[in-house]
């Protein structure tokens, strides 16, 4: 790739489940150090697109690169070799992901959750990893909870641990799949604050969200998706405050109620 190497480049990405095509050719670039928010009604394909980025879903057509690395394939001459489990796992380690349902490991304490990745996948030094983990946990305001089990935490606290767990792998790119959708309304703010802080530190982020306030304040670019297509992209001031497409307008009107 050339001098301008985006964090993420997707070209005509397609994905089907059986006969249902959920991504109908998505093309977009996400520059390094920027925050992109994916908006759209449920079923628009935004979560699926996010899961394609770290190969939790395999794309059926098009091409995708993360930090210049082709997702899922290795190119040799004019051939694309499908990657195997170990190579895919290695590529994933550089991409952090935060899930709607947190997905913390319930049988491990907060600290064990955070250090698990580096210890298992990078065979990292335990003392160093624990130090990093404690720094990250203090950043998300949970240093006093290191020995708790996830079930003993509130949803907002669990999600902040999940963010620390992803960050402990020192990722280049962070993916957020509706990180606040499963939270009680009063807990949304604490998670968004952590994400804002992360964006302020220059982390490249792709965020699927319904939080319009967050998208407006933090996103560099907002992508609006509907029915597996990218309808409209641009800075939040344009897409959220002055949408051009009828589809975007009707969605935003419903969300704003």
């Amino acid at each position: 790739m050339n001098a301008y190497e985006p964090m993420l480049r997707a070209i005509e990405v397609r994905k089907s489940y059986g006969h249902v095509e959920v991504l109908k050719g998505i093309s977009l670039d996400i520059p390094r150090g920027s925050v992109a928010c994916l908006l759209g009604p449920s079923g628009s394909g935004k979560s699926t697109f996010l899961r394609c980025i770290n190969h939790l879903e395999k794309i059926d057509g098009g091409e995708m690169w993360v930090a210049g690395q082709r997702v899922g394939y290795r190119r040799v001459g004019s051939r694309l070799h499908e990657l195997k489990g170990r190579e895919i796992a290695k590529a994933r380690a550089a991409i952090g992901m935060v899930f709607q349902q947190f997905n913390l490991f319930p049988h491990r304490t907060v600290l064990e959750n955070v250090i698990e990745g580096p210890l298992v996948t990078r065979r990292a030094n335990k003392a160093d990893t624990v130090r990093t983990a404690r720094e990250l946990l203090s950043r998300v305001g949970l240093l006093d909870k290191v020995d708790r089990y996830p079930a003993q935490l509130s949803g907002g606290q669990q999600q902040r641990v999940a963010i620390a767990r992803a960050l402990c792998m020192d990722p280049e790119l962070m993916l957020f799949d509706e990180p606040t959708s499963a939270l009680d309304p009063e807990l949304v703010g604490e998670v968004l604050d952590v994400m804002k802080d992360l964006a302020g530190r220059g982390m490249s982020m792709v965020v699927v969200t319904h939080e319009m306030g967050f998208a407006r304040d933090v996103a560099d670019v907002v992508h609006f998706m509907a029915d597996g297509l990218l309808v409209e992209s641009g800075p939040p001031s344009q897409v959220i405050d002055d949408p051009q497409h009828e589809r975007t307008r009707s969605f935003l009107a419903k969300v704003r109620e």
Partner: protein
Amino acid sequence: MTDLDRSRDDLTVVPARYPGRWAAAVVMLVIAALIGISMVANERFGWDVVAQYLFAPPIVAGLMTTLMLTGASMLIGIVLGILLAVGRLSPNPIVAGAAWLYSWFFRGTPLLVQLLFWFFLSALYPKIVLGVPFGPEWLHFDTNSLITPLTAALLGLSLNEGAYMSEIVRAGIIAVPRGQTEAAEAIGMTRMQAMFRVVLPQAMRVIIPPTGNEVIGMLKNTSLVLVIGYSELMTATQSIYARTFETIPMLIVAAIWYLVMTAVLSIAQHYIEKRVGRGFEQTVRVQKPAMTVTEAIATQRRVKA
């Protein structure tokens, strides 16, 4: 009649009463007393014979064999079951198919047949040879010297147990939410790392209770090795009453030992369940205690005032 009368301050709370529980307790006590009295009064129980044989050397030796066979077969069976369950869920269709075929065969034929089959293996293969097929042969074994009643018993019991354990382990794996595997893979774990570090430890919660069943079943299934001439607790008991005709007391001796072993296992299971259940306990959430009726009335009064 509605109860909107707020004029009185001296309401008392009367706990619900459960007369049915008392009635059930009385009935149970009477039944227990009847059984107890009959056990003491009926001399045919032969408690003196029971006491005489409870720690007799052949009985204790049989007990040890039962414990050894159960322990060894379960250990091999559990390891085999985990491998088969992971194999069943493998994306490799050959591995998954082979694991399915194994369970089908070993669950589909009687344990008794399998034990006899292993014991009489030499009739089918008089010699076992280690080497390259159609090539050089390195090691020769005489099947008859390899297959003793002990090895036949271990082979039969553990290979059969592996098939049952594989289904128990598979159920446990399936019970762990898919998001756990995804979260593990998202931090760069391979499928196997996710399975052994994240999924299986959580599956243990579901795997342990039916495995307890299997161990207790195995304690008693070991008595089947009688057909291949191997002696354990039940065989030892039978050979004694065949000689002394003290059938009932000897069966009581066997029953007492089986019950003691089951009790010990149940206690062990309790502690294992506690250990694998870490992080899953009913959480003690800081919750305001529910108001008592009097408090509730007082609060409403304040609000009104």
